[in-house]
């Protein structure tokens, strides 16, 4: 019997080619989008799940609050790991990994081997426990001893390949600008998505003793990520409480010893390592971390798109039930039981879904490179199909196939099973009696489903327009400084270069295409630091934690940041260094200062400094954030960047000059340069990615809904051929008839738009609240979206109605 179901199912689908094509196309697109989103979300969930002791590993984060200014950060003091290791029972291992600026991919270190220079982006520091917690696969070397001795370095396989090719790396000596390291291990990080990102790790014991002592002493110098592996017997909450209590005692002693006036608190938290990737609310955290809310949004979109595609199938099938009612009636007369009929429908649905699945997977495989580019990932359908790490994707697909087939088949089966064979076998009017009522109910259900489809479609259009407008707004928003024609060059972490940085800058400036050159420690758009400051010369006033911006001479002039009062930093080296401070307006307000210029101002615990000027607020980070209070320090000796402002219209010339000069001053070193505007633009890369995804998802969902509406309206309009013939004979004009046919569907679309509006308004307002600067949602966005959807729907419905209306009435009247 089952074979018979398949045979009949295939014949039905082959006979109704157009109908089958519409269904397969819609489902294929729906499934393809679902698979893309699934793979995307799965790739995020895979982060940090592969460690052997995954559930025992925790990261420590902290939230401090000073004078009402509180901040959550991923960094902790260096000393925390040793406290944990030495003072607590149940701590199996504790380690720390030093912070390297993850937001600046141009910030590279150079390594020399065999006279050849290699650029390595992220070299971090960790102690011997690191590889006992994070059990990377060691291709060479031994995890237990790799980071024990000073001047040891463990590199990842990519770095090893870059430097040594296929030769063994272990035992070789690599030279940085600071010292020489012995390669003690090569690890394989591929296929292991983790929030931990580094190219090489050197042993902490390589740090000189004095600096190490400072690090071990300080309770407030946040430099490291701290990880701990707890014994099974330890209750994490209890542990968190105990070590907070312990640290508080040490902090109090440190404050007293250093004579700090600190009013505030510091609270440590522990989080499971597999959740780190989903924590997007901390400063100095891994840039690969994601907002879990966005993942939920994508999951909901995936389900909605799938729902939209399923609705097509259900609607077409129930609409066509009229046509099949005679067959079903006959089967009933011949003794088919309801479940046998339902099974017939489910088999037909299964065949369509199966075809759609195969085509969808082929489509996914075909479009994967483009999708990877869109989401900046390296996803692979085949890898996921055979991967058993999280949840077997094959099983997800099978489950999806079954669910779609059953849903798609049981709705029409339900409608058809309610037919009384007596009504359908002998031409009883479809619009009268109980049968008419059943059809009426089925019609209402179809309308309801169309409304859901268009709600999703219009909602997606609205969201896309709002995201687009917001990003446009950000692009055009006045930042408070002039980023145009400004280039940012990364200064090599080479003390030799820094010693001659002024001569290099002179050479760079010495060209007609260059207007200004300055060195600086911080640049807008890059990571900023926070420091403890104190107003006044005594510690009578409590310390404050404020963002600081280390700049060189000429920083404000180059970026055209206006002075409100006082002066810029003096152009005499040494004059303002460590003693002169410039504040922005937000800092003045934050500190509640009436007179500003000349007020004593210092690093916590230091004396002799003062405020020399106040500059206008500017947005140094993304417009997601308000302008933070900011202290500018003069730090030409630790410049990480050189900023070059080129003359308008002479950018090519300037770039060529910079590149030539760089070769000279670095003896052929690589130039890492980026335009400040594109760096600022990259702050919104996440938002732009979201816009792109919304745009494509909208296209898909609108297209799928249109396919459905086309199929449904075509069928139902065709059913009315005879009625239209009669109306034409009675004098109905083409225009009147087309309007009559189209209006019913347009009303549904309009209603969908009305329902979608408040929902989108609420959700998008929530999204916009994530920006300190944002557009306000305008009614025009909704009107445009609804009009757009109406236009698409009108076109879709017109295609068939024009054809039917133009049919010769004499032919139309013959249609039964």
């Amino acid at each position, binding site marked *: *019997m089952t074979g*018979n179901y398949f045979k*009949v199912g295939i*014949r*039905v689908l082959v*006979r109704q080619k157009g109908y089958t094509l519409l269904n397969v196309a819609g489902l294929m697109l729906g499934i393809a989008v679902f698979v893309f989103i699934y793979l995307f979300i799965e790739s995020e969930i895979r982060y940090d799940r592969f460690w052997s002791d995954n559930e025992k590993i925790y990261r420590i984060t902290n939230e401090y609050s000073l004078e009402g200014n509180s901040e959550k950060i991923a960094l902790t003091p260096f000393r925390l790991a040793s406290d944990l290791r030495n003072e607590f029972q149940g701590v199996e291992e504790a380690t720390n990994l030093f912070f390297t600026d993850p937001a600046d991919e141009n910030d590279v270190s150079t390594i020399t081997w065999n006279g050849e220079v290699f650029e390595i982006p992220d070299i971090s520091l960790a102690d011997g426990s690191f590889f006992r917690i994070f059990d990377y696969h060691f291709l060479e070397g031994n995890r237990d001893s790799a980071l024990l001795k000073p001047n040891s370095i463990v590199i990842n396989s990519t770095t090893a390949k870059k430097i040594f090719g296929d030769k063994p790396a272990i035992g070789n000596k690599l030279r940085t600008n600071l010292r020489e390291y012995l390669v003690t291990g090569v690890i394989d990080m591929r296929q292991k998505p983790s929030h931990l990102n580094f190219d090489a790790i050197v042993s902490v014991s390589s740090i000189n003793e004095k600096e190490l002592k400072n690090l071990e002493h300080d309770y407030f110098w946040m430099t490291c990520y701290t990880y701990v592996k707890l014994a099974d017997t330890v209750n994490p909450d209890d542990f968190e409480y105990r070590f907070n209590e312990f640290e508080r005692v040490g902090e109090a002693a440190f404050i007293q010893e250093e004579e700090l006036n600190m009013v505030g608190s510091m609270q440590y938290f522990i989080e499971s390592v597999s959740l780190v990737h989903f924590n997007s609310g901390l400063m100095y955290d891994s840039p690969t971390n994601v907002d879990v809310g966005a993942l939920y949004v994508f999951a909901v979109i995936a389900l909605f798109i799938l729902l939209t595609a399923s609705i097509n199938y259900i609607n077409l099938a129930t609409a066509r039930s009229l046509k099949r009612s*005679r*067959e079903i*009636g*006959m*089967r*009933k*007369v*011949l*003794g*088919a*039981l309801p479940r*046998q009929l339902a099974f017939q429908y489910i088999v037909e649905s299964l065949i369509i879904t199966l075809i759609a699945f195969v085509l969808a997977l082929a489509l996914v495989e075909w479009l994967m490179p483009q999708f990877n580019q869109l989401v900046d990932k390296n996803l692979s359908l085949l890898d996921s199909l055979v991967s058993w790490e999280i949840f077997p994707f094959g099983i997800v697909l099978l489950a999806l196939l079954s669910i779609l087939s059953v849903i798609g088949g049981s709705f029409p089966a339900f409608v058809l099973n309610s037919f*009384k*064979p*007596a009504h359908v*076998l*002998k*031409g009883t009017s479809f619009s*009268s*009696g109980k049968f008419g009522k059943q059809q009426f109910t089925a019609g209402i259900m179809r309308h309801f489903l169309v409304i859901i489809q268009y709600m999703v479609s219009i909602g997606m259009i609205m969201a896309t327009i709002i995201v687009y407008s917001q990003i446009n707004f950000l692009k055009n928003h006045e930042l408070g400084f002039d980023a145009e024609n400004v280039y940012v060059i990364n200064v090599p972490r080479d003390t030799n270069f820094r010693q001659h940085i002024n001569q290099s800058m002179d050479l760079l400036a010495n060209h007609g295409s260059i207007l200004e050159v300055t060195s600086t420690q911080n640049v807008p758009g890059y990571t900023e630091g926070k420091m403890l400051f104190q107003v006044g010369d005594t510690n009578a006033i409590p310390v404050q934690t404020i963002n600081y911006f280390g700049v060189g001479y000429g920083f404000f002039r180059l970026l055209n940041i206006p002075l409100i009062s006082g002066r810029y930093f003096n152009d005499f080296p040494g004059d303002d260094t460590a003693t002169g401070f410039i504040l922005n307006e937000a800092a003045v307000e934050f500190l509640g200062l009436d007179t500003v210029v000349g007020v004593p101002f210092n690093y916590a615990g230091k004396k002799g400094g003062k405020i020399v000027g106040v500059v206008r607020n500017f947005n140094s980070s993304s417009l997601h954030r308000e302008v933070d209070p900011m202290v500018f320090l003069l730090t030409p000796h630790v410049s990480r960047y050189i900023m070059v402002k080129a003359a308008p219209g002479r950018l090519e010339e300037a770039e060529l000059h910079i590149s030539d000069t760089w070769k000279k001053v670095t003896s052929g070193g690589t130039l890492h340069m980026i335009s400040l505007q594109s760096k600022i633009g990259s702050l919104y890369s996440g938002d732009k990615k979201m816009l792109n995804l919304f745009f494509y998802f909208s296209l898909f969902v609108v297209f799928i809904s249109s396919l459905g509406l086309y199929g449904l309206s075509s069928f139902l309009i065709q059913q009315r051929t005879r009625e239209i013939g009669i109306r034409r004979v009675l004098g109905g004009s083409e225009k009147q008839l087309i309007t009559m046919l189209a209006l019913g569907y347009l009303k549904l679309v309009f209603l969908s738009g009305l329902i979608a509006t408040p929902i989108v308004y609420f959700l998008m307002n929530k999204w916009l609240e994530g920006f300190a600067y944002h557009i306000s949602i305008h009614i025009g966005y909704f009107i445009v979206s609804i009009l757009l959807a109406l236009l698409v729907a009108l076109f879709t419905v017109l295609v068939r109605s024009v054809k039917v209306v133009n049919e010769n009435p004499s032919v139309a009247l013959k249609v039964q």
Partner: protein
Amino acid sequence: MNIIETSSLEKIFQAESVETIALRNINFNVKEGDFVAVMGPSGCGKTTLLNILGMIDDWNTGSYFLLGQDVAKLKEKQRTILRKKNIGFVFQNFNLIEELTVYENVELPLQYLGWKKKARQERVSALLEKMQIAHRSNMFPLQLSGGQQQRVAVARAVVANPPLILADEPTGNLDSMHGEEVMNLLDALNKEGTTIIMVTHSQRDAAFSRRVVHLFDGQIINENLNKLD
């Protein structure tokens, strides 16, 4: 023995506010092996009566016994089982399933009865042979003439050897030659012992029956015996 017994059967169609009495006070008995023609003008309730007898429609009051079973007391599933074992249907518009071949259409009732494949094959092939449509067994209904389609429909109706055949204007869509062929088939079946109740407008078709029942406005107005064995 009566294969069918109805007593005071009444059927009312309710559409919005309009109530139409389709059948009233129908006392109708049919003996095993009988061939009854039901005649009357359009809308007199012939088909409604046939549908009720075939358990594909309900009635409002009165009783109906089929093969000694009180149909009113049967659940839908029990009616389905009773129907598929005992009744074959022939319709004016054939009601063949377009997606199935001639062979598969005839085979379908046996599938629903749970016959084994081999038994089905033997039965269907023999029947198609007998009905002289074996050479069309792989064709689809739309590839056949009306007469051929009705032959298939008759074959499908009798394939499970039901004791009762309900035929609703079986020649209504056929020309006289094909109509006569079909009537000859029904006649032959009746002679083999199958009870037949046939709704018809045609005096010629009614002439094949043994008894003619006349319906008018939902009531049996007279009955007469047509011919003797």
